[in-house]
């Protein structure tokens, strides 16, 4: 039935818009009742699911249910005194960051403030001029771009990265597809070079998560995402936090900062040295 498809879409959109499961149930049931009684088409009565979901979310004055804050666990990532100079310019000046299990740290700052550099140092892809990074557990890294093989399809990526993490073929494929589904994405059998920028980033993100690493370093992974996927992304990040992961996200969007536990502003550090 058409109503059911619309109601299912509404359920998904409400979740995306941060409406909690209980309230989502109420809103959907109420809409279903209305449709049954009026006999009208859902599009006429409520409009497109995403529009109605946004109206519901707006009427709540912000997200209904914030992810529960748990007591953070043991330290997963400790960066101490990270200093990096490029051609005499100090990009990072004695930066410290400690992230515990169950915490999200946002790394913010203007363009060129060294956000990606800091993350690459944390991932061990780049050496700092001074400072150390201690990581407790396995590390997952999602680069800003690249990080995928042009001529391989998503499933082949899952198998390749999965093998590194010690996952068998079938397990890796299943884990990859599950991670993709959480981003509302069904990986096609298409080589990565034919995927759009946003889709490639989804792949990138799923790959970083494969094998459930304890520490996740995400470098603006949502570039090219549409609004819905962007919301899905943050919901996933919160879910990972609740599962006890330590997450570092590079971002220049400040509107999510109230939903993270730690904010590391690199602009300030650079201005201090200037």
């Amino acid at each position: 039935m058409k109503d059911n498809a619309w109601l299912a879409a509404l359920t998904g959109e409400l979740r995306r818009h941060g409406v909690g499961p209980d309230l989502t149930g109420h809103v959907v049931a109420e809409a279903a009742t209305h449709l049954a009684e009026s006999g009208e088409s859902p599009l006429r009565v409520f409009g497109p699911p995403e529009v109605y979901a946004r109206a519901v979310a707006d009427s709540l004055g912000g997200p209904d249910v914030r992810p529960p804050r748990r007591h953070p666990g043991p330290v997963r990532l400790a960066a101490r005194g990270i200093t990096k100079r490029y051609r005499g310019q100090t990009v990072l000046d004695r930066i410290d960051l400690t992230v515990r299990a169950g915490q999200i740290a946002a790394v913010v700052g203007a363009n060129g403030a060294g956000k990606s550099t800091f993350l690459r140092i944390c991932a061990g892809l780049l050496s700092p001029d001074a400072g150390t990074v201690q990581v407790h557990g396995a590390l997952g890294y999602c680069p800003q771009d690249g990080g995928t093989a042009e001529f391989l399809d998503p499933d082949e990526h899952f198998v390749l990265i999965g093998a590194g993490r010690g996952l068998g073929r079938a397990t890796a494929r299943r884990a990859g597809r599950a991670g993709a589904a959480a981003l509302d994405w069904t990986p096609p059998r298409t080589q990565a070079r034919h995927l759009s920028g946003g889709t490639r980033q989804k792949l990138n993100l799923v790959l970083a998560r494969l094998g459930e690493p304890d520490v996740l370093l995400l470098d603006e992974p949502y570039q090219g995402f549409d609004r819905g996927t962007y919301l899905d992304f943050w919901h996933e990040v919160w879910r990972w936090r609740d599962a006890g992961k330590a997450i570092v996200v590079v971002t220049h969007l400040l509107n999510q900062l109230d939903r993270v536990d730690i904010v590391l502003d690199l602009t300030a550090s650079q201005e201090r040295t200037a």
Partner: protein
Amino acid sequence: MNQERRAQWLRGVLDLCVLALLSRGESYGYELSQALRTYGLGTVQGGTLYPVLLRLQRAGLLTAHWREGETGPARKYYRISPAGSAALHAAVIDWSAFTASVGAILSEEPKR
């Protein structure tokens, strides 16, 4: 009536209309939309009505509970709360003053 203008006006007063309707007894979404139509406000679509109900409920002006109907599906019934009654009472006074002012301006004879 000009549809667009009516929609614009309605946006400002729909919550008051809903509160007023519910002050006469509990009701549910579909019935409320029928009532608004009967009063000549035209069709207020669910997409507009339910977010308003939700906001009023969140603000504590309405309470809601689900009840099985004798026939048909379960309905979410809304009831006005004491805070809602108080808010409605205050708004009715404001509204009278407001419409009186608007009315005075609009009904004044143009000067020759």
